[in-house]
Structure formats: structure tokens, C-alpha cells
């Protein structure tokens, strides 16, 4: 690698709870499969990190269809965390990801604090997982998930249990479906979280006028896509002011400009979700766009713009 490339790359590097990333752009859980689904479209080596689909202890069937519905500027989903389970992930999906020089973040989910800690333990012993993202915020499953995420004490307890089982950096993913998201963020920070990521989807619904039935079999689902960006941005800004640990911004990011807004609001890194569905190369275009922004504005290092909002 020539020195000028090296310098360029150093300008994009960020660190999240000890985990060094080439750049601040990751894929959001549940929108990029296990990486292999998009490997034909994207050079995975270029990504900051890949966050895989939420993993539970046992395989999960997920919710009955229909599971998705398009809405204005976004979509509703009620997938219900269908996944192969942590053991199959380690055996069948992780070897594929190990071929790449990219950070792999395992998103985990449990119906109890015990299940969270069991999944965390298994992943910590596996080769090729670089951090855990604890999903305490899924709106589409009956037990666990959201209920942990909407109570500061429960969220802290899950965080402690996961931390006790792992040497890996622990990111706690927060739900926007609460009154005071900053309070939850502070609570998991105190419990030892190395970073927080936000937001997960906002609960919503949509109705078929012809049949007067909900479009989703689950009745409600999680809203994602550009429609939620202003809400996500506001929450990232609020949380960033209250915690010292890194904040990862998620919600409706389609372009480099969107990503930069989140970083100015206080996010040290971002995740790209629904945008992948309409443009599989969205992540790469966003990375390039951020790089250009830095060059054009003579900003030496991406970290220099984090939390620089002028009010």
C-alpha cells in the first residue's frame, strides 16, 4: 500500500470500545443477512463492520407471513427474528465471514437474561467474532427483546450478564419505543456497556382498506427507512450528550450526507439498514461519500467531526 493511501485510510478509522474499524460504516442487523447474501454486490473487505442478523440460542421459526409492507419512505417488518441459531451460525456462517478482513459483530437476542448470557458465551469462544451487539429492542417478538429495552434496570441487568460472559466489546442496541431513551443509555453505560447503538425500528402498523385487515400478519411491525431518520437523529443527539461511551447512529441512512448528519449529532459510527434493500452498494457509496466530504472540507480525520453540532 502506498503511503498516501495509508494516510487516507487512517483518516477514516474509528474505534468503538477497543474495536478498531477501517471506517465508521457498518451494516445494520437483519438487513444484510449473514454477509453472504450481498457478497456478490459488495466487497465486504471495504466495510467498517458487518453486523449479522440477530442470533438466539436455538433456531427461531419467526413470524408467519405477510411479514413486510412498504410505507411512505420506508417499510414495516415483523420478521420475528427468524434465524439459524447460534450453533449453526458458528458452524456454517462464520467460516464464510472469516475469509474477509472485516470486523464481524454478532447481534444477539434472548428471551431471558440467561439466554442472552448463553449466546454471548458461545460467540465469545468462536473464532472470528469481534464484538457483540445486544438487541434489547426488537418490537416483533412476544417475549424478551423490547421489554428488556424499555426498562432501565432490566437493560442494565442484561448488559451485566453479557459482560460477565465475554471479553469482547459489548454494544447495547436501544429501542426508540420509550419515553426517555437517554435514561436507558445511561443505565447500560453504568452496567458496563462499551457502546450503544440506536435506533432499532419504531413500532407501527398499516391497514388494507379492501379487507379491513392489517397488512402484516403480526398486526404491528417495526418501521425503518428514511421515514424514521429525523427521529433517529434526535435520539442520537440526546443520547450522545448523556453518555461518554461511543454512540452508533442508525435509522434511515441512505446517503453519505445522512451518515454525516448522524456523526455531527454525536455518532462515532453509523449502521446502514433498509438502504441495502434498494441499493446493495449503499454502504460502499456512503464510505466513498464520507471520504470525499473530508477531502473537500479539508478535515484531517473523521473523528474530528463527531459531535460538532453547533447550537
Amino acid at each position, binding site marked *: 500500500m502506498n503511503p498516501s493511501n495509508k494516510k487516507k485510510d487512517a483518516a477514516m478509522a474509528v474505534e468503538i470500545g477497543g474495536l478498531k474499524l477501517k471506517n465508521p460504516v457498518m451494516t445494520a442487523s437483519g438487513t444484510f443477512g449473514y454477509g453472504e447474501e450481498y457478497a*456478490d454486490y459488495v466487497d465486504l473487505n471495504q466495510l467498517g463492520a458487518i453486523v449479522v442478523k440477530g442470533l438466539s440460542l436455538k433456531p427461531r421459526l419467526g413470524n408467519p407471513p405477510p411479514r413486510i409492507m*412498504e410505507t411512505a419512505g420506508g417499510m414495516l417488518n415483523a*420478521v420475528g427474528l427468524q434465524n439459524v441459531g447460534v450453533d449453526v451460525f458458528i458452524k456454517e456462517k462464520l467460516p464464510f465471514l472469516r475469509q474477509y478482513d472485516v470486523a464481524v459483530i454478532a447481534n444477539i437476542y434472548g428471551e431471558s437474561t440467561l439466554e442472552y448470557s448463553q449466546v454471548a458465551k458461545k460467540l465469545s469462544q468462536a473464532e472470528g467474532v469481534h464484538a457483540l451487539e445486544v438487541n434489547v429492542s426488537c418490537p416483533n417478538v412476544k417475549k424478551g427483546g423490547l421489554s428488556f429495552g424499555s426498562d432501565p434496570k432490566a437493560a442494565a441487568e442484561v448488559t451485566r450478564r453479557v459482560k460477565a460472559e465475554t471479553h469482547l466489546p459489548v454494544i447495547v442496541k436501544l429501542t426508540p419505543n420509550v419515553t426517555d431513551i437517554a435514561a436507558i443509555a445511561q443505565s447500560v453505560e453504568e452496567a458496563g456497556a462499551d457502546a450503544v447503538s440506536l435506533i432499532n425500528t419504531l413500532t407501527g402498523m398499516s391497514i388494507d382498506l379492501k379487507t379491513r385487515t392489517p397488512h402484516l400478519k403480526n398486526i404491528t411491525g417495526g418501521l425503518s427507512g428514511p421515514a424514521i431518520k429525523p427521529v433517529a437523529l434526535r435520539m442520537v443527539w440526546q443520547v450522545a450528550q448523556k453518555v461518554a461511551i461511543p454512540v452508533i447512529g442508525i435509522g434511515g441512512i441512505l446517503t453519505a450526507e445522512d451518515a454525516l448528519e448522524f456523526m455531527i449529532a454525536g455518532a462515532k459510527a453509523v449502521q446502514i439498514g433498509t438502504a441495502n434493500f434498494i441499493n446493495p452498494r449503499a454502504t460502499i457509496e456512503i464510505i466513498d461519500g464520507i471520504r470525499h466530504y473530508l477531502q473537500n472540507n479539508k478535515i484531517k480525520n473523521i473523528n474530528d467531526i463527531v459531535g460538532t453540532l453547533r447550537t
Partner: protein
Amino acid sequence: MAKDIYMGEVAANEEIQIDYFLMKVTLPLSFSEPLPGQFVMIRIAGLHDPFLSRPISIYSYTRGKSNCAIELLYRVVGKGTQILAGLIKGSQVEISGPLGGSYSIDHQKKNIVFIAGGIGIAPLSLLAEALCRKDCYSAAAMTFYLGAQTADAVVGLNRLRKLCYNITVCTDDGSLGQKSLVTKAFQKDIKKYSPSDTVIYACGPKAMVQSLSKILDGKYFCQVSLEERMACGVGACVGCVVAVKDGQGKLAYKRVCADGPVFDLQQIIWE
């Protein structure tokens, strides 16, 4: 990286019957030759309403010297297809594909039966073409049952006539061909087709496929192409699932885009 999002150019987009359109899109040669049953995700670059791409089956494929072309046969049912219908020659569309799996064509059977409902003719027409190209034996073995609500909704018949000699057309109101459901018309003939000598390919509305499943009663080898709402089209979001029996006969949800869209009829679990 083997796959890409292709910028396609609309070469033609004609209303062939009320609400039914035939669009021809030229693509670079790097767009691979599709297999019958495969589809594309199509959207208009930069447009955010509708937000998601739309899945449409590949109806035909031709390869020239400097580019290739696909045809899409579609029905206007909502906002997305309405916008497609408004595109004029020269418009740009974003296409990804060919996506999904295909019908399997390596059966040497005496009878090859197609059952199509409405727009379901699109993937089956490409399949018939592939079989004709494969060997003249297959071409002679084909029988096509094509159903629609009315004569106005029968599309693709002229092209089909060039591929297949035995075509039974049915409409719900008798405005063209037999006044019958397509599945009923097939059922009347079912004695002609012994299960061991017959392969059946189907595509159509859920109700049609479900009634076909009852008629065949698990005795025939039948492949069917299914539809579900899609977001990613590549297997990543797990949004487009259908209920099927897994290897052990237990309920599993499979992705229409990545595990399908073609499934063995016997695998499908009906509510």
C-alpha cells in the same frame, strides 16, 4: 463481485391489453442469461415513493452483439406498476438480477403440463421456450392450460401458440375459450396424464395454486412459482417467506426470493 445493479434502458413499453404491459429493457451483456422462473427487481433510480423495488418475472431474453434485452409482462395493480406503465422509450430503470432459482427442466416425461393463471403465464412462457430449445421431443409433449377472469386478461397467447400446439384457454365468464376455472379444465383431462409420466409446472394466484394442490393430491410432481411482497430480493431481509415442510416434515418459513420462487407443490403448507 459477480453481480451488479444494472442500468437498463426501456426499449419499448406497450399496453397490450387494458392494464397489461409488455416492457422491453436493454441491458449490458454482463447481465447473465436467465433461467426460466427467475425474476428481476426493478426500480426507478432516485425515486423514493414507492420506496422498494418490485419483483417481476423474466418473460424473455435475447442476446445481441453489444447488449442483451429482457421482456417483462406485467399487470398494473398499484403505484409501482402504474409508474412502470408510464415509462417511455429511452427511460432508465435499475435492474438487479436474474434472481432466485428456476424450474427444473431435466425430466424426460411423456407429458409436460403447464397451468397458468393470468399473469402467471410470464415465467411459464420462458420455460416453454427453454423446453422447446432443449429438444423437439419436449416441444411435442407440452400441454398448456391458461386461465384468466375475462378475455381482456388473457395475455401472451399469440407468442405461446408458436411454442405449444395444445393450448386450452379458460375464462371465468366464458368470454374466451371454455367457461371454466383453469384448474377445473385440467381436472377434466387428468386421466390423460398418469402421475409417473407427467411433470406439471404452474404459476398463478394463490387460490389457483391451492386448488391445484387439492386436485393433484400429492400424486404428481409439480413445481410452482410463488409470489410474496419483497424488500431485498436477495435473501437478506427474510421478509418474503412462505410456509413449507422442511426435510423432517416440520413447518419452516422459506424465502420466496432466495429459496424459491419455484417450490415443489407438495412442500407448501396451506393455512
